[in-house]
């Protein structure tokens, strides 16, 4: 026992990325040690899901490419992040995703596609997609699974990594795999407690606030006209950090900073949706 927490002594290890020697603490992943490797399924508050395969890199001695989001650095490892092989893989993964999924609200993905020359239309007009009507079954949020890339982040956020409500899971298999409540029940009949922590981590906009969904539908959603201001929640004394996204002096979305030691990006229904009272005029 010590009065002070003395912490765990950490070793430093060296490895090579694209020819450059880098030193990182033991336990670091390749992704954390490199800048700007594109990824969709990696969440800074979640365990790596290893699902999207956008962040694949070459590691010398490995038969296949390696997911940089989850692979821990080993001493002497030689990593290449930008080779013909990694670019081919990234191009194909983005093409496959783009051919099956609506990526129109996925931040940065068009930039990455342009970078590697991805063309999802290559698979032809008859390529199977996950297109389906958006699920609007409650007043607070919308699930548009046409945009779902099955990154598992919402399931992990709802499950034992954060919210522990377990309202949703991956169901089905293969191309039919999808995020679902039990027996596809509407959210109000499920274990959902409307914390919105799934929306917080969704990388594609498949999950969104009802307000955002409606505004997008009527063409009034304008991110360039929005401000994001971080403040503190007015409900209870835990002191959760809220980032209020405001357009035309109207709160249109609430997020929480992922680096907050209080919330790690998570909120409850009151923090996420309880702001309406100040705007009732």
């Amino acid at each position: 026992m010590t009065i002070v927490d003395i912490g765990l002594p950490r070793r430093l290890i060296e490895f090579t990325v694209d020819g450059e020697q880098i030193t990182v603490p033991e336990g670091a992943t390749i992704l954390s040690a490199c800048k700007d490797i594109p990824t969709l399924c990696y969440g800074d508050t979640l365990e790596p899901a290893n699902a999207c395969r956008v962040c694949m890199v070459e590691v010398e001695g490995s038969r296949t490419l390696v997911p940089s989001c989850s692979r821990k650095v080993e001493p002497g490892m030689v990593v290449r992040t930008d080779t013909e092989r990694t670019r081919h893989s990234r191009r194909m993964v983005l093409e496959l995703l783009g051919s099956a999924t609506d990526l129109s609200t996925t931040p940065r993905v068009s930039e990455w596609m342009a970078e590697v020359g991805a063309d999802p239309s290559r698979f032809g007009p008859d390529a199977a997609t996950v297109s389906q009507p958006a699920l609007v079954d409650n007043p607070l949020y919308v699930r548009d699974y046409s945009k779902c890339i099955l990154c598992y982040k919402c399931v992990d956020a709802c499950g034992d990594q954060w919210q522990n409500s377990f309202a949703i899971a991956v169901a089905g298999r293969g191309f039919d795999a999808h995020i679902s409540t039990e027996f596809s029940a509407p959210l109000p009949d499920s274990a959902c407690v409307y914390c919105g922590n799934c929306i917080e981590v969704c990388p594609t906009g498949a999950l969104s606030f009802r307000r955002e969904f409606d505004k997008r539908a009527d063409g009034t959603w304008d991110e360039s006209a929005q401000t994001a201001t971080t403040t503190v929640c007015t409900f209870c004394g835990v002191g959760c950090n809220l980032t209020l996204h405001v357009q035309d002096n109207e709160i249109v979305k609430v997020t929480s900073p992922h680096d907050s030691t209080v919330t790690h990006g998570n909120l409850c229904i009151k923090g996420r949706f309880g702001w309406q009272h100040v705007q009732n005029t």
Partner: protein
Amino acid sequence: MGRRKREPYVRLTQPLVRDSGVLRPASWDEALDRAAEGFRRNVEAGGPNAFGMFSCARATNEMNYVAQKFARAVIGTNNVDSCNRTCHAPSVAGLAKVFGSGGGTSSYQEIEDADLIVLWGSNAREAHPIFFQHVLKAVHRGARLYVVDPRQTSTAKWAHRWLRLTVGTDIPLANAIAREIIHSGLANRSFIERGTEGFEEYAASVEEWTLPVAEQVTGVPADLIRELAHAYARADRAQMSWTLGITEHHNGTDNVLSLINLSLLTGQVGRYGAGLNPLRGQNNVQGGGDMGAIPDRLPGFQDVEDPEARAAFDAAWGSQIPPYKGWNLTQMLEAMERGDMTTVYVIGENPAQSEADCEHTIKRMSNLDHVVVQDIFLTKTAQLAHVVLPATAAWCETDGTFTNSERRVQRVRKAVAPPDGARDDIELLCELARRLGHDWRYDSAEQVWDEMRALSPMHRGMSYARLADLGGIQWPCPSEESLEPTYLHARLWEADPVRRGRPAPFSVLRHSPPVDELSAEFPLRLTTGRRLDSYNTGVQSGGFSSPLRRGETLDLCPEDALDLGVVEDELVQVSSRRGAVVAPVRIDEGLRPGLAFMTFHFPDEVDVNQITIEATDPVAGTAEYKAAAIRVDKLPAVR
């Protein structure tokens, strides 16, 4: 007494003044002049103590600082308090009595790193959901969770062990745990000798609480009491957290002290990972007290009866602070009834609905000569006012800071402009101060903060820039150059007695059952609490449509429902010695026979505080919301 669905409150955008008994719109000048004039009139007639300030636990630290300064420097009274009285005042009082400062001792990260967590009288899963995520991180890592609660709450469902105690028997349970620890040789002698005093008397006082006696009184099986005693004492790092199940009793401060005793007995405080943490119910109830918006403390927990402390403030403010404690909220209500207090300035509080036995409160407030309410809504309380001043919503329409349950001061920022017609709280306080002869002007919240931290050593190192850079700072933070540990009271472990300072005293406590006794007429125990998607009197949380919300219900266990011949959703009459309400029945298997549960979120539909009891804690003044005696009657069949 019928139930009606309330429309959400709309924002106040115009000052109101009362003429011939009716509130009518007024200009700002008229309203402010009237407000100031009323205060002057009453203070001239009855002295400074005819004035009371109800400050706001939801407003910023800066607002609370200015509000208490208004009471002390402009009016010259220490009669300032806030709704912390209705919830955690006993926590503050208990912690301050033992350790000298009234904050939780640990950080949220330490909860995650603990080996054992006790949640006592706390339904954190619903009332403090994000705190509970830290608890679950620990549980998933392998920590043990014990929940002490009369109800099998959703929190209790996560526990490794749930100790279902009878409402109001917390002290017997804590004392029995203590006795078991002592008799098993598990008391931490090193810590007791180093950091505490009064152990012998304490040990003698718990001697009567043998396991069988405790089992009989508390309803908790002896082996569970023994298990918790051993687990808590043996854990390397144990956390004790509590909420209103401990504090909202007529002896709430004693309840808090009984838990603090356990930490002293086992050395589970003052170290990384081991501590005592009340979970605060309002976003800035911690900060309100820290800022001196309480009758006995100046900003930074400085004693109002300490001449040196007062002198510093008087010098800075040009004031003459009275050298004695002011009245707390409960005492102020009593003073209103006596006629000693004739005017109040209520900022963002809703005592007409939040106080126990609220009919009584309304009656008392109606006695007053002059009530000024500054709020964002026309609440029940505002409807009683003589002057109503439309204010801003602190958390999103103003700049400033809040202080959370882990003592972390965090920046609050203006994200939206307030509706036209609403004005900043601090600006309004300054307007009134100027009308009462004090030329107050603040250009920014930061200016207020800097004035405050010059006077409060424990806040001195927290510049706005630093708060932004570090994502908030936990107090104490005396220097801009360094940070203190995340936990309090490490001094108690020091080997050097000088550095150790004042030892933490054990408290000798007596069991005192709930005041509202069960009887043949009122055979059921009613306890109250929160639900996940709602908040307090529902003024804020009623503003959004929650798919989870079901309105007020009377929760009964299946056995009681069967006995009473009532079924789910049936409307019944719930009566206590003070009043009666009508509510629908909800069956909850987490309750046991004899125990009923209601929230207090829907007072406009079912005003539960018409039946709760106002029996208050003598130290902290908090009412016994958690234990009323009720009866439940079927309604006559509708023809």
